[in-house]
C-alpha cells in the first residue's frame, strides 16, 4: 500500500488518452491475446487499465477491427463481417479429364446405365472420383435402380448437362452415323452395341420420360 503511494508519487501516471494508445499498440503488436496482468506489467504504473481497455474497445466499435475479449485476455481481431476480405478467390478453368469425358459420354449415350455397364464399355474400371466429379458438376445424377440382381443404381444425364453442351434433349446427341460422317469414327459399328442399350423389357418399364429419349438414342446408335 505504502509502496503504491510512493510509486505513484514517483511516476506520474500518463493521461488516459496516452494509456489508450499504449493498450492499442500492445494489442496490435502481440502475437497472442494479452492478459490484463501482462499489460499491467508492461505499462507504466498508475494506469487505469480497465478504463483504457474499455475506451479502446469503444473506439473500435463499428470499425474494421474489433477489440475483443478472449477468456481473460484481450486481442484485436478482424470484424466478423469482413472475413471475406481475407479470402482470395480464384477461378480456374480446367479441361475435364479423359476418364471423366468418356464416362460422361457413356452415360449420355447409354442412360440409364450402371457403373458395371460403364466399365464394360470403357474396358477399364471407373474410379469413384470420376463419377463423383460428374455428380458434383451436376452433369449426371442417380437414376432408378436397375431391376437386375443386386438392383444396381443407374446414372443418367441432367438438364444442366444438356444446358452445358447446348443440347435441347438427349435425342440431339449425334449418333454413331454422324460421328462417322464427322470423321470421328472410322470403323464399322461393333456388333453387340445394341446389347448395351437399355432395350430390355425391364427398361421399358422405366419412366416414360426416358422412353423416347432412350429409343431415340438407340436409333441413332444403330444407324
Amino acid at each position, binding site marked *: 500500500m505504502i509502496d503504491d503511494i510512493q510509486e505513484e508519487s514517483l511516476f506520474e501516471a500518463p493521461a488516459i488518452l496516452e494509456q489508450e494508445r499504449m493498450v492499442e499498440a500492445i494489442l496490435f503488436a502481440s502475437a497472442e491475446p494479452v492478459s490484463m496482468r501482462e499489460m499491467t506489467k508492461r505499462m507504466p504504473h498508475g494506469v487505469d487499465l480497465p478504463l483504457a481497455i474499455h475506451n479502446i474497445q469503444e473506439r473500435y466499435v463499428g470499425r474494421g477491427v474489433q477489440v475483443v475479449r478472449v477468456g481473460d485476455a484481450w486481442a484485436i481481431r478482424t470484424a466478423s463481417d469482413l472475413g471475406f476480405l481475407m479470402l*482470395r478467390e480464384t477461378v480456374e478453368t480446367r479441361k475435364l479429364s479423359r476418364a*471423366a469425358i*468418356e464416362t*460422361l459420354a457413356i452415360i449420355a449415350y447409354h442412360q440409364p446405365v450402371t457403373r458395371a455397364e460403364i466399365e464394360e464399355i470403357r*474396358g477399364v474400371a471407373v474410379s469413384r472420383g470420376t463419377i463423383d466429379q460428374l455428380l458434383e458438376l451436376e452433369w449426371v445424377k442417380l437414376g432408378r435402380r436397375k431391376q437386375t440382381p443386386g438392383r444396381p443404381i443407374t446414372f443418367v444425364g441432367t438438364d444442366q448437362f444438356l444446358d452445358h453442351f447446348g443440347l435441347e434433349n438427349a435425342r440431339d446427341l449425334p449418333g454413331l452415323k454422324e*460421328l462417322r460422317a464427322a470423321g470421328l469414327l472410322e470403323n464399322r459399328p461393333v456388333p453387340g452395341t445394341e446389347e448395351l442399350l437399355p432395350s430390355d423389357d425391364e427398361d421399358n418399364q422405366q419412366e416414360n420420360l426416358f422412353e423416347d429419349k432412350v429409343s431415340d438414342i438407340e436409333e441413332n446408335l444403330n444407324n
Partner: protein
Amino acid sequence: MEEELDISESIAERVASETLIVDVDGFEGPLDLLLMLSRSQKVDLRKISVLELAVQYLKFIEKATELRIELAADYLVMAAWLAFLKSRLLLPPDLTDPGPSGDELASYLAFQLERLEAMRDAAAKLMARDRLGKDRFVRGLTEDLRQRKTINYSANLLDLMQGYARIRTKDDFRPFVMDRDSVLTMEQALERMRGLIGFMGDWTDIASYLPDGWSEDPKKWRSATASTFAASLELAKDGKIEIWQDSIFSPIQIRKRANSD
C-alpha cells in the same frame, strides 16, 4: 638518468606503434585513413589542405613500413598516388603537360573524402531512425490470406463426341488375342475330337465332347459348341464318324464309323 629517459621514450614509441597496428586494422581502406588524418586539420573538408594531408599520409605509411606493419596493397597504391600529387602541388604548373593539374587532382581527392564522410553521416542518420522491430512494430496477430480456388471444368460437345468415338473405336481395334480365352477354334476342337474318337462307343451327344469348363460360361459354351459341331462335320466328311439327329433341336449325336482306321 638519460638511459632511463631513453627507455621511457622507447616504451612510448612502442605503445605508439602498437596503437598504429591496431588502427591500421581498424581502417576501412586508405580513404578512411585519409579521412581520419584530415580531421586533425579541423576545417571544412572543402577547405582542407590536400598537400598537408598527403604529407601526413606519406609519413604514416613510412612509419608503418619502418615498424614492418603489413600494409595492404591499397595503402601503397594510395601512397604512390599521393606522392605524385604532392610533387604536382609543389611544382609550378607545367602548361605543356596534357595531364590533370595538381589542383584538379587535389580537388577530386577532397571531393572523395567529402563524399565518403557524407555517406558515413547518412548511414548514421539512417541507423538512428525509428527502426522496425526496435522502435516500431508490425502486427503480431496476422491473419493469413486464405486462398479459395474455384475450378470450373470445361468440356464441349466435340470433347464428348470424341470421347465416345474413342471408346467405340477402341472396341473395334481390340486385339484378337484378347478374346481368345473364350473362343475355341475349330482346329482346337478337331484335335480334341480326333484324340477322343478311339474311345467312342455308341451314339454320343456332341455336347459331351466339349472341353472341361466350357459349358458353364455361355460365351465359351457357344464357341465350344459351334467349333465342336463344325469339327464333327469335318470328321464325318472325312468318313471318320457318323452323325445323326432325330429331330429339329434334338441333341446331335455322333459315333465312330466301323470301317474307319
